[in-house]
């Protein structure tokens, strides 16, 4: 006989609210008149996220491993990661609400008369809001899931909407659809690897729960554990775009509509790293001698490869894609560190990196000519002269990516490297600082192009952003600036919340 599982609704409330908002959004699509949808959808998204945030605040001191029958752990780090995802999503949704970036009808063939018609009717794609909320819900579930099946479900829940969203760009449709297809196919492969690894881990431990796998250490043949870890890692490393599983990143970042790129770049990293941290800190902590060398090598490869290849990029979105690869490498050193400092540093890093990324892509969305966004770096030349404020903010964000002192990126890097040093991974620290030096070059090269070179092409201009984008970019930038000057505001929190329930 089956008994109904007991769920702790109060602890699951933040996730339930977001998923509920997503379902409500689908109903709005079905029943509401076209003209009202956009406003209602935005309200639902904002409301759901705000409410979820309020619920997260309410449960901030609670913890439980049995919130959903041993499948979800609500703990300090989990709540911090969920809150990070929700906050980033709140800022991102304002960017997404600028619907000019999205195709009017996704199913229309690019360039067809059908498409032209929908454009003329000014019809808008409002499914993006429920899709977005489903993705956010999945991202909230991923870092708190404690068994392999729930992890897999969460992975798919947030990946599938992203595959769709990536293909919705209004301009450069073919590029966008190509990106979506690539992302989907490679993502499907990665998911298969993840499942394959999960099967091996089940075979090894006889259980799918992370704590069970941890407890089983030493009782069975470690070869199966190693195979399980390796294949599981392939799936996870794909999501954070670590080398050699990174090849989708530049194409997707470039092809996807810029607000979606911003959302994806910021939130996927938080969710995926949250899950990786939990899996390795809780599930595989005992077997660290097995996987630490592998992840260390991958971290080193990722840092160096991302930094070097970024130098050759001529497209700003592709450059930031490679920069995000390099940052994934830096973040991996927090995973390898495997101590409390590493966890706290990773939490801080993910938060600050997320906001800096959102602001940067938000600004990229503002640089346009008559045919749409301009991402070719050569056409950004002299932007500092045309709009000094926007260019100045962008330069600041680049310096933060580069980790110059007095920016949040610097504190994050310092925290994560000192955690790695503390755990004895000195090689990782040395490679990390050298990769940072290489990375500084391409960030600064963009600053040179913007400020030190005279404009040649007059058709590019910075559009005046809508109120929503303006709020979004301002908030994200302010958070970056404040956390650079007074990092204690968040560092102490990250310290307190750096705790996984086992």
């Amino acid at each position, binding site marked *: 006989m089956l008994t109904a599982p007991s769920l702790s609704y109060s602890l699951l409330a933040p996730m339930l609210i977001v998923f509920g908002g997503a379902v409500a959004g689908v109903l709005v699509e079905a029943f509401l008149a076209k003209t009202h949808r956009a406003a209602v959808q935005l309200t639902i998204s904002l409301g759901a996220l705000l409410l979820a945030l309020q619920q997260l605040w309410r449960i901030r001191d609670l913890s439980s491993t049995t919130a959903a029958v041993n499948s979800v752990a609500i703990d300090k780090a989990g709540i911090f990661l969920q809150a990070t995802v929700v906050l980033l999503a709140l800022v991102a949704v304002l960017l997404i609400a600028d619907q000019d970036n999205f195709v009017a009808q996704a199913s229309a063939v690019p360039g067809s008369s059908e498409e032209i018609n929908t454009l003329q009717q000014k019809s808008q794609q409002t499914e993006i809001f429920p899709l977005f909320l489903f993705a956010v819900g999945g991202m909230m579930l991923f870092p708190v899931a404690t068994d392999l099946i729930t992890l897999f479900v969460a992975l798919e829940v947030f990946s599938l909407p992203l595959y769709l969203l990536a293909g919705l760009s209004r301009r450069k449709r073919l590029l966008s659809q190509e990106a979506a297809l690539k992302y989907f196919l490679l993502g499907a492969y990665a998911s298969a690897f993840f499942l394959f690894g999960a099967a091996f881990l089940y075979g090894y431990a006889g259980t799918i729960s992370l704590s069970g796998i941890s407890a089983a250490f030493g009782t069975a043949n470690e070869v199966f554990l190693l195979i399980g870890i390796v294949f599981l890692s392939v799936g996870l490393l794909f999501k954070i775009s670590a080398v050699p599983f990174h090849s989708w990143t530049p194409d997707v970042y470039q092809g996807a509509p810029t607000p979606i790129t911003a959302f994806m770049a910021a939130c996927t990293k938080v969710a995926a790293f949250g899950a990786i941290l939990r899996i390795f800190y809780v599930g595989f902590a005992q077997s660290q001698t097995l996987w630490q060398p592998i992840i260390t090598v991958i971290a080193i490869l990722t840092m160096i490869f991302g930094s070097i290849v970024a130098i050759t990029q001529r497209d700003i979105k592709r450059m930031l894609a490679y920069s995000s690869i390099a940052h994934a490498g830096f973040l991996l050193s927090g995973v390898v560190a495997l101590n409390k400092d590493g966890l706290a540093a990773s939490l801080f890093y993910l938060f600050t990196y997320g906001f800096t990324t959102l602001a940067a892509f938000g600004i990229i969305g503002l640089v346009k000519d008559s045919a749409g966004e301009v991402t070719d770096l050569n056409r950004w030349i002299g932007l500092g002269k045309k709009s000094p404020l926007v260019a100045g903010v962008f330069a600041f964000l680049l310096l933060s990516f580069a980790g110059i002192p007095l920016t949040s990126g*610097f504190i994050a890097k310092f925290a994560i490297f*000192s955690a790695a*040093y503390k755990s004895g991974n000195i090689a990782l*620290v040395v490679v990390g600082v*050298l990769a940072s*030096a290489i990375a500084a070059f391409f960030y600064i090269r963009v600053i*040179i192009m913007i400020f*030190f070179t005279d404009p040649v092409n007059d058709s590019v201009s910075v559009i005046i952003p809508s109120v929503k984008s303006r709020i979004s970019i301002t908030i994200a930038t302010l958070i970056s600036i404040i956390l650079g000057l007074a990092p204690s505001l968040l560092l102490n929190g990250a310290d307190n919340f750096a705790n996984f329930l086992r």
Partner: protein
Amino acid sequence: MSLLTVIGVLPLIGAIILAVVPSKNSELIKKFALGVTLIVAVISILLATGFDKADTKMQYVQSNSWISSFNINYAVGIDGISLVLILLATILLPIVVLATWNESDSGRWGVKSFYVLILALETLMIGVFAATDLFLFYVFFEAMLIPIYFLIGGYGSGNRSAAAIKFLLYSLFGGLLMLASIIGIYVISGNQIGATFDLAQLAILEIDNQTENFLFLGFFIAFAIKAPLWPFHTWLPDAAKSATPGTSVLLLGVLDKVGTYGMIRFCIELFPDASKTFTPLIITLAVISIIYGAFMAIGQSDIKGLIAFTSISHFGFITMGIFAMTSQGMSGANLYMVNHGFSTAALFLIAGWMMARRGSSTISDFGGLQRVTPVMAWTFFIAGMSGLALPGLSSFVSEFLVLVGTYTRYPVAAVIGTLGIVLAALYILIPVQKALQGPTTPGNENLKDLNIREKIAIAPVILVIVIMGFYPKPVLDVINPTSAQVVTNAGFTDPLAQVSK
């Protein structure tokens, strides 16, 4: 709040006011900047009068928690060494502002941004010498690059953006190596006495030899790039040629001193054993710098390049004095930092006026300036003589102290170093002869002599050069106790003078 903090914050407040207040009146902006830097200079002199010379401890200390999770504090304080360098910075700044009144007019972003950058830079310069928290120092050290980068790239001449990025990348590379070392020593302190960035506490750590050597190298390479020491110097000539004269004064006169200051404060005080290990290598590099810089200077046809290479030679002397590990050498090196600051300032500022009038920086374009512009020619002459360490001018005292201090421990290095003085006569006298004496080169007949603003600006510099040449005692009194303390703390005693029998 310590008076030190007041001095540090004032320019920043000035920069913010300038940035916020919408004014297009460039004369007013310049006067405001001059006013702020003058006030800071006056307060810093007050600071110096309140300084207890005999006390070798940090004075005017202040410490507030900044980032508590890492035990990072806003901790400042000064001893004799940092006091004179802060004075150097605060006194040179109003002079630079006054001397280069029209320098910013032709820049890429206008007058206002120029002075915002200059004032922000002053805050960072004071901070970098005042910080007694390693992390705070690093923040100032790296943040300082940004205003200089924009000053070179936005207001310089020639291939300015290439020079700016070369400067920035060299410095960032060194800075990041240092960051690895800072993380290292921070973690070690965490294992031994509780994680801290406080310099006094870091100095007592017990670090095993191999680790200490690596940590030392991380710091040393960063400072050798900054100083700059051969073979890390290649960014300097480009930067000095491209920057405006005012920026060059700040770059060579003050900012590069952070390199030699860092060698004393961090390399020697934190890693005395490793310093001992590497001393022979460093002395060799210093001697090479002295000779190499001198020969390159002789070969320069560009007046800014000439001054840049003479500086590389002089930084060789400073580094040699520091790592000779004698109290005379150390005092001499410290005094040299101050004197080099003033004589370089004089050379660059006057060279800047010459170039602005003639529209060329090639030495052979000048000639017979003494007839046309006597004041400009004579001030340049005095600055040049100070550069070649003529007795009676400031550099002589410091060069002498460095050589004496080095001789007692490394006689060979001192003797080769002396060769640098001989070469200095060549690299200064040849251009002096070409540019100032002889018949007036065609095209120079109508050059105007210094105007009243320029005379006011250069007078204090020349005055300092002359007074410090005859009576360096006040400055030495401040420097000596601290210098002796540094040498003693590093575990060295002055070798007895060898008397041949």
